[in-house]
């Protein structure tokens, strides 16, 4: 009933179906057409001529042997416990109590922003990473990356020694090679010497690098992050003429607008923000009002899922949206706002709600948004009187 090239011959299939009467079931067109491939498949699924274990002597013998080995295996339990050695330390490390975990306060920097951690340690082996309850940016919480970071400590690909051209070298070899190399740069004040690091916010490392650069004034230091916060910095530059670090106090915010900012699952301080945000979501005691969250975003995110009002916009449209909102809020900005922006129905009610809560509203711009959105967010927070209340500016780190 199939044509030569394996296609179904629907006309003959229909004819066959119309001729059959009563209940004749079929589960696929293959079965109905009785193709060769289907017959082969059926044979393999239920192999009628497959070997069965019909040899009675062989089967009995097999059961005998199995029974005997099981019984004998039980006999091995009837021995005395073997002697067990106790191998104590030669010089016991301080504070280690066998059987009790030791907790170390640590931090995990990601993009230069550290997350406070407590690492559980059993006799020298780290076993679990949790948030440090004493750390203001963690309060005992961690994110997925910090939780998973325990695995990197046991990563077999992690370098255990100094290597050179794939060969294991001692630390001393590294030091002497390095000294030699640095001496070559000593003559020309480090011209041609380049340092490549990730974002460094550690004051200690920064000072060490500063001292190195003071010795080699012509050397250059490059910091690079594949996913960086450049537009945040440029936005601050645009708004204030200088870089600032921005922190938010979500406990004081009644109305929050996120411009593509996933501040509940990523970014600096998100663990603390999540805690503060949910604290204002609880109606208990003498707290009868919840905060309100507006999210304008381009990708579904945790923050969007928590939003009271969520507006999906394309990433490029958010800049125009922010500009229109800023104009509505009375921020004077050199760029004119176009009236026909996407989501324009939101502008007037949103501005009204924000204006109703001066000093208790908050506008957060997403890190991936262009500098202009950040600058507008700064300007709007300023216009709403949020600075020093829900928005705190500090020296850049």
């Amino acid at each position, binding site marked *: 009933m199939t044509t030569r090239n394996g296609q179904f011959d629907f006309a003959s299939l229909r004819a066959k179906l119309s001729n059959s009467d009563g209940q004749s079931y079929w589960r696929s067109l293959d079965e109905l057409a009785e193709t060769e491939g289907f017959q082969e498949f059926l044979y393999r699924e239920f192999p009628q001529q497959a070997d069965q274990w019909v040899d009675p002597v062989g089967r009995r013998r097999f059961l005998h042997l199995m029974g005997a080995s099981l019984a004998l295996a039980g006999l091995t339990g009837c021995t*005395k*416990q073997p*002697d*067990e*050695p*106790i*191998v*104590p*330390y*030669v*010089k*016991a490390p301080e504070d280690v*109590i*066998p*059987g*009790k975990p030791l907790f170390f306060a640590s931090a995990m920097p990601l993009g230069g922003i550290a997350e406070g951690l407590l690492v559980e340690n059993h006799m020298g082996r780290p076993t679990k990473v949790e948030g440090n309850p004493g750390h203001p940016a963690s309060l005992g919480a961690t994110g997925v990356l910090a939780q998973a970071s325990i695995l990197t400590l046991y990563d077999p690909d992690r370098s255990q020694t100094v290597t050179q051209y794939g060969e294991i070298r001692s630390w001393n070899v590294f030091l002497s090679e390095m000294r030699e190399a640095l001496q070559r740069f000593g003559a020309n004040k480090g011209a041609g010497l380049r340092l490549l690091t990730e974002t460094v916010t550690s004051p200690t490392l920064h000072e060490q690098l500063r001292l190195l650069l003071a010795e080699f004034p012509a050397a250059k230091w490059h910091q690079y992050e594949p996913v960086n916060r450049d537009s945040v910095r440029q936005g601050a530059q645009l708004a204030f003429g200088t870089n600032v670090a921005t922190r938010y106090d979500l406990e004081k915010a009644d109305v929050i607008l996120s411009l593509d900012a996933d501040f509940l699952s990523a970014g600096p301080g998100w663990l603390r923000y999540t805690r503060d945000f949910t604290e204002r979501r609880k109606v208990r005691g003498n707290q009868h009002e919840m905060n309100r969250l507006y999210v304008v975003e381009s990708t579904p995110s945790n923050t969007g899922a928590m939003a009271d009002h969520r507006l999906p916009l394309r990433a490029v449209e958010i800049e125009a949206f922010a500009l229109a909102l800023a104009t509505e809020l009375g921020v004077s900005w050199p760029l004119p706002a176009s009236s026909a922006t996407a989501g324009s129905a939101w502008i007037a009610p949103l501005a009204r709600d924000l204006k109703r809560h001066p000093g208790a509203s908050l506008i957060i711009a997403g890190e991936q948004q262009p500098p202009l959105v950040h600058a507008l967010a700064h300007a709007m927070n300023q216009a709403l009187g949020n600075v020093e209340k829900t928005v705190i500016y500090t020296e850049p780190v």
Partner: protein
Amino acid sequence: MSQIFHRSTNTFAKLSIFGSIFILAGIIAVIIAVNRSGYVTQAGVTREQPVPFSHQHHVAAIGVDCRYCHTTVEIAAVAGIPPTKTCMNCHSQIWSTSPMLEPVRDSYRTDKSLRWTRVHDLPDFAYFDHSIHVNKGVGCSTCHGQVDRMPLVWQHASLQMEWCLDCHRRPEKYVRPRDQVFNMEYQPPADQIALGKQLVKEYKIQSLTNCSTCHR
């Protein structure tokens, strides 16, 4: 045809039928006795150690406290076997050339641990925590015997489950005041049960006989 067996065999046959119950009981009694003997439980068997460390000398003669070496007995599940450093605290000064102590000095020099033989070896399926027992007024010598009289340590008790349960069912039979826990010479007073009942109340000792208390 003459009879194969003598007439007296009848008596033997009757006796053995009657006696089979006693023979069976005897076999069971022997099995029970063997199971509780030192041959199986290792109680009372002195174990050989790399260094013939004498508790009798160090505890009774010199007066070293249990906790000088077994440092974690009050805070952790294991009492703790001292590091070689603890031995060398004294033995770098005294008996510093004794051939008996050569393994200790060797361990200290080469940074290789001494390998002691475990004397009290609970099965791995039983959980035991020293700290809770010590803090609830179970003395060292209640379980370990008078270690200060052992030149080489042997296991004092059977460490069998019935032995554990004996105290877990009726703790008042064994508890002592907390300040006497490390006293090796402590003898229970005549009114132990009355004192025990009072201590059980005061220390809030529970009679934990749930399976999962020890078999976790």
